[in-house]
């Protein structure tokens, strides 16, 4: 168990059954009064923020979270399945939990899955992924309209802006941190 003296930014604790990350912390103590421990915490499952103030003597259950390398297998409706290649153990995550990460999930992509007990609560992607363009308008040679980008759809269904010279069928590199086009994969 943690006590209030352990509270600091980055600490992970369990509150009402959910894992929370302490994102801000301060110790407040009015003259001659009791100490207050003010925290701002982020729910690690749904991302919501919570302000809580504690006093001396209160304690917290540590949230044990584990990151495991897994491979994305397939999607069925809104359920995405991942598998640990070592143990063949599978976990399923909802589209809502994945958030924007779903835009880059191509079968066999290797990701880090964050587990809270048995439950998968999020994934970390590689910073860059290669995805093939399935649909984009043809670039009219001699177009001087000044547009320096156009929309393109990639094989996961994700739509992003790409430079005009990119054609359907080409492989492009996308930065998963920003969701933006990075470069073209030659050859």
């Amino acid at each position, binding site marked *: 168990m943690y006590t209030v*003296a352990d509270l600091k930014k980055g600490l992970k604790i369990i509150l009402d059954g959910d894992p929370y990350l302490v994102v801000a912390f*301060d*110790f*407040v*103590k*009015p*003259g*001659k*009064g*009791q*100490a*207050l421990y003010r925290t701002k915490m982020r729910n690690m499952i749904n991302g919501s923020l919570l302000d809580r*103030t504690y006093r*001396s*003597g209160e304690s917290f259950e540590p949230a044990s979270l584990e990151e495991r390398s897994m491979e994305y297998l397939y999607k069925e409706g809104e359920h995405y399945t991942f598998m640990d290649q070592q143990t063949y153990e599978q976990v399923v995550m909802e589209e809502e939990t994945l958030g924007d990460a779903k835009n880059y999930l191509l079968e066999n992509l290797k990701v880090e899955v964050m587990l809270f007990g048995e439950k998968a609560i999020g994934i970390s992607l590689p910073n860059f992924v290669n995805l093939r363009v399935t649909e984009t308008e043809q670039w009219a040679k001699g177009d001087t309209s000044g547009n320096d980008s156009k929309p393109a759809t990639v094989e996961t269904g994700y739509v992003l802006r790409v430079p005009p010279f990119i054609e359907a069928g080409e492989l492009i590199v996308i930065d998963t941190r920003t969701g933006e086009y990075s470069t073209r994969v030659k050859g």
Partner: protein
Amino acid sequence: MKLDALWLRANVIKTVRDFFWERGFLEVETPLLIPANAPEEYINPIITTNSWQLQTSPEICMKRLLCGGHQKLFQISRCWRSDERGSRHLSEFTMLEWYRAGCDYHTLMGDCEELLQYVAAKCLPDSRSFVRNSTRITPFAPWERISVQEAFLRFGQTDVWECLRKGLYEEILTSVVEPALAGFSAPVILMDYPKELAALARTKPDDSELAERFELYVGGLELANGFSELNKPDEQRRRFEEANRTRNNIGQAVLPMPEPFLNTLAMMPESAGIAMGLDRLVMLTAGADTIDEIVAFTPEEL
């Protein structure tokens, strides 16, 4: 940046020292390692070898000097309070305390006004004002003196006695009253605390439920705590025992009684004393948001 802060810190300390020397105060050094501090509910001393303690404040020794006949005393010394660390707290910090015989807390409020004006004029000659959270606070404007009850009613629309009963005192003070005080462009004095919040202070002659204690706030930052000293040994012992009972109830160690202090207290003349967080005065002078910015090293850096 830290180089500038350390120059400013040294300048503030020298200026404070000049202020008291010019006014005929005796600068004293009392032992930092003592057998017993004044037992208080929510202040935890650091215990060293042979169960002695590092001082949480020099007040016990300073008051014994008052008992010995000294009239005006000041000290700048290190104090330690276990497990206190935040943006305004360090477990080891620097305290300025001064004591006057033959005075009550009103005299100390006047000292505070003069001291802050002196520091602002000497250390910040251009602006002659402090900065806290981008608010400029000038000690040369008139200071408001507000009773604690009035502050709770005015800023929190709530009664301080009711907050105390419900255990909400600290919460309302820090989340409602102090932020309201941060909006004042001059320092503010909160005064006349419920007596349970002033273990070493004298109660008011016309209201035994209130203690002659005040706190100085600058830009919402609590800077100093002063009071008219209680000089009745029996009453003082009873309050220390009460503090120890509370400590026992909340699972904190019961602390030893400072017996030599209690034994000489009857000889203490009417007097008043005050403790000011010197680190916080430096923060205000530097316009620093955190105490980390104005010390040579934080504990995390050691």
